[in-house]
């Protein structure tokens, strides 16, 4: 098997790039914080997801600023940003693009590919649930393979590429819940909580005045790609690796490691993609913490956003409204605690 590997940087290079990553991360967090009030954990996880080149599913009630958050991220980075408003009549070609018959300068007519919004660096799929399954499936290839195929021709999507889809958990009528196969392709599922009283007051102050906040884009595509590469350089300690393996195993109800809650209310456990997400996100958090190795605590920190959309509850779990977060907590408890 032939494997290609980019030349590994020196220790000094890694240190320099790690410092740059921390600086970039803090800058983005600060810039987003100027527009988006509160939810520091949500912002942190969203940025980690982006730098790991993963896609996120953001779930929250209407009006909590999901779209603002993603749009601000796109603005803070000097990257292309596209927004897809998913409606029932949205067609796959509206997402991926299509071939159009166009006239060439010499008078000939030929088909040329017109890229869809999916070819942006940061894509916001707003309210993805109302889109038909056919349109949702159009995202599948782009999410996983990072290219789209139109009329038999494959078109690569430039890196960095991240899709942030939002969904409304309240309005279920006339919507099409994402199938499990598509859910699994999202790196994180992030929940937007209700803002606190102080945050709500700050939101009102900022949004009802005359002041308009301008975000200064600072980091381009090359910087983001370098950050992604430096994250992958981080080592994984044996305790962290074992923790990930135990967590994934414990989400499956037919294993001995599964806690009683999982055995009772879970139909299918997490996939290997969940383990990949935990490791990659753990690497990013390790770098942010000034370490060059993933610790077990990093894994526990990212377990909930990496697992909660990959654990499929059974009928009893849904009827008794056992939340995925409660199941993940039970899994973390049996695998070494939430902080260890």
């Amino acid at each position, binding site marked *: 098997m032939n494997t290609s590997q980019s030349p*590994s*940087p*020196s*220790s000094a*290079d*890694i*240190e320099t790039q790690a410092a740059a990553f921390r600086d970039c991360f803090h800058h983005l967090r600060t810039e987003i914080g100027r527009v988006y009030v509160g939810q520091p954990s949500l912002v942190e996880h969203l940025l980690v997801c982006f730098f790991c080149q993963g896609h996120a599913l953001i779930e929250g009630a209407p009006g909590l600023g999901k779209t603002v958050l993603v749009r601000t991220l796109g603005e803070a980075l000097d990257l292309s940003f596209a927004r897809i408003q998913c409606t029932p009549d949205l067609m796959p070609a509206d997402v991926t693009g299509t071939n159009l018959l166009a006239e060439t300068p010499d008078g000939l007519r030929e088909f040329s590919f017109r890229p869809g919004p999916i070819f942006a660096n940061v894509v916001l799929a707003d309210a993805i649930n109302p889109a038909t399954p056919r349109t949702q499936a159009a995202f599948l290839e782009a999410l996983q393979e990072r290219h789209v195929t139109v009329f038999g021709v494959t078109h690569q999507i430039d890196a960095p590429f991240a899709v942030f889809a939002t969904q409304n958990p309240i309005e279920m009528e006339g919507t099409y819940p994402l199938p499990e196969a598509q859910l699994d392709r999202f790196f994180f599922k992030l929940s937007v909580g209700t803002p606190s009283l102080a945050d709500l007051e700050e939101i009102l102050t900022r949004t009802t005045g005359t002041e308009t906040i301008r975000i200064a884009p600072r980091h381009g595509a090359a910087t983001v790609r370098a950050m992604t590469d430096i994250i*992958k*350089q*981080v*080592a*994984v*300690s*044996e*305790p*962290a*690796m074992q923790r990930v393996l135990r967590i994934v195993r414990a989400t499956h109800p037919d294993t001995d490691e599964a806690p009683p809650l999982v055995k009772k209310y879970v139909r299918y456990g997490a996939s290997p993609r969940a383990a990949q997400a935990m*490791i990659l996100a753990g690497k990013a958090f390790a770098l942010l*913490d*000034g*370490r*060059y*190795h*993933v*610790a*077990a*605590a*990093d894994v526990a920190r990212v377990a909930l956003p990496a697992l909660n959309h990959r654990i499929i509850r059974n009928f009893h779990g849904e009827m008794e409204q056992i939340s995925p977060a409660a199941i993940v907590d039970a899994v973390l408890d049996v695998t070494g605690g939430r902080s*260890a």
Partner: protein
Amino acid sequence: MTISRDHAQPEWADADARQDAPGAEIVPGAALVLTALAAARRRIRLTLLARAASVAGPAGVTLGAAGVLLPLGSPPWLPVLLGSAGLAGATVWALLRTPSLASTASALDARLDLRDRTAAAYQLHGSSSPVAGLVVHDAATHLAALSVAAVFPFAVPRAALVLAPLAVLLGTAVAWPVSPRDRAERETAAQSGAGMQQPAAARSSATTPAPETAARNSAGPEAEASRGTRGTAASATPSEPRPPRERSEETAGRRGARPEDTVPRPGQSPARGKDANPATPADARIAEQQPRGGAPATPPDAAIAAADTAAAQGGRGLANPARPSQAGTVARGSGGRGASDTDATPLASAGRGAGGVSQGPLAALPRLASTGFDRSQAPAGLAARYPTARAGAEAALTRDTVPPDLRDYVREYFRAIAPAGQR
């Protein structure tokens, strides 16, 4: 980047030795990490050993002391044996439970909240990847001021807080008995050890005993041991070690003095009941019916023991003229020490009944002794002790109320066993 386990050094390799291995210093700071790990591992092992030993040692001593103090027939060295076994077991347990270097690294991380820094550094210390240097350097920075004693302090187990004082208490009770009777027995044993080595004249002049006590003292240490009595501490002299066989015989004699030992237990020498002094005639009959045997003794030893016993019984047994038959039975029992019926020589037979007052088989014993006693086989101690023993017997016969026929009996006995030149 996931670090392969191949990078980890084998568990058996000591960290200090590994530093000298080629390539061990690929990553700067690896030596410091490995040294810290080795120190932490030694500390963990020491802590485990101390914790286990603080429980197992006292537990063994406690069990052994309980076995000695309870009437189980346990030897007095059992506490030492079990305590040593406990310490040895604790050592083995600590060695087996000593964690590997990888586990030690995890323990260090957990204690110091290092977020797996040490574990990752141990994984990567042999790697040549650029990030390995950063990981090891990071760990070395955090471990630079490591104090393993502070990280792994020794905590006394709760069980040890109970067991240690208990072991000291019971061990003290075994080593220095608090019971007056036990104390007297031990002092008697010490005197017996000294008496075998010291001249009789020195012993007889050591104190000025009461009449009855004087008779006992002059009768020799074997008589004291055979009687199982107390109160001769005044005549005690610095003891010297005696041959183990003689000591064990005396120990058996002391035990024989206990009423519960009148009936021999399985595996116990029945001849120990020589001076059981039964409280009832039935007990006396039991003592009389006991087979005389036990540890085989050489004829001279048996003769000496019989002589001393007889002298002693002459002093004590006659002190109770109201029960002559019982005294005679006791004397018969005491005379049988060290001689079995199967290997009974004329001398042994003589000694067996020499102290008695009965006119049955015992009456012929002095005659047998006088005819069958080969004085050339007598040990050197007999000549030295004979004058003292005989003087003591004479004193007792003079001062105590003794029936005349028994006085003659004792005198005849001493004449029979008198060494050459002292008759």
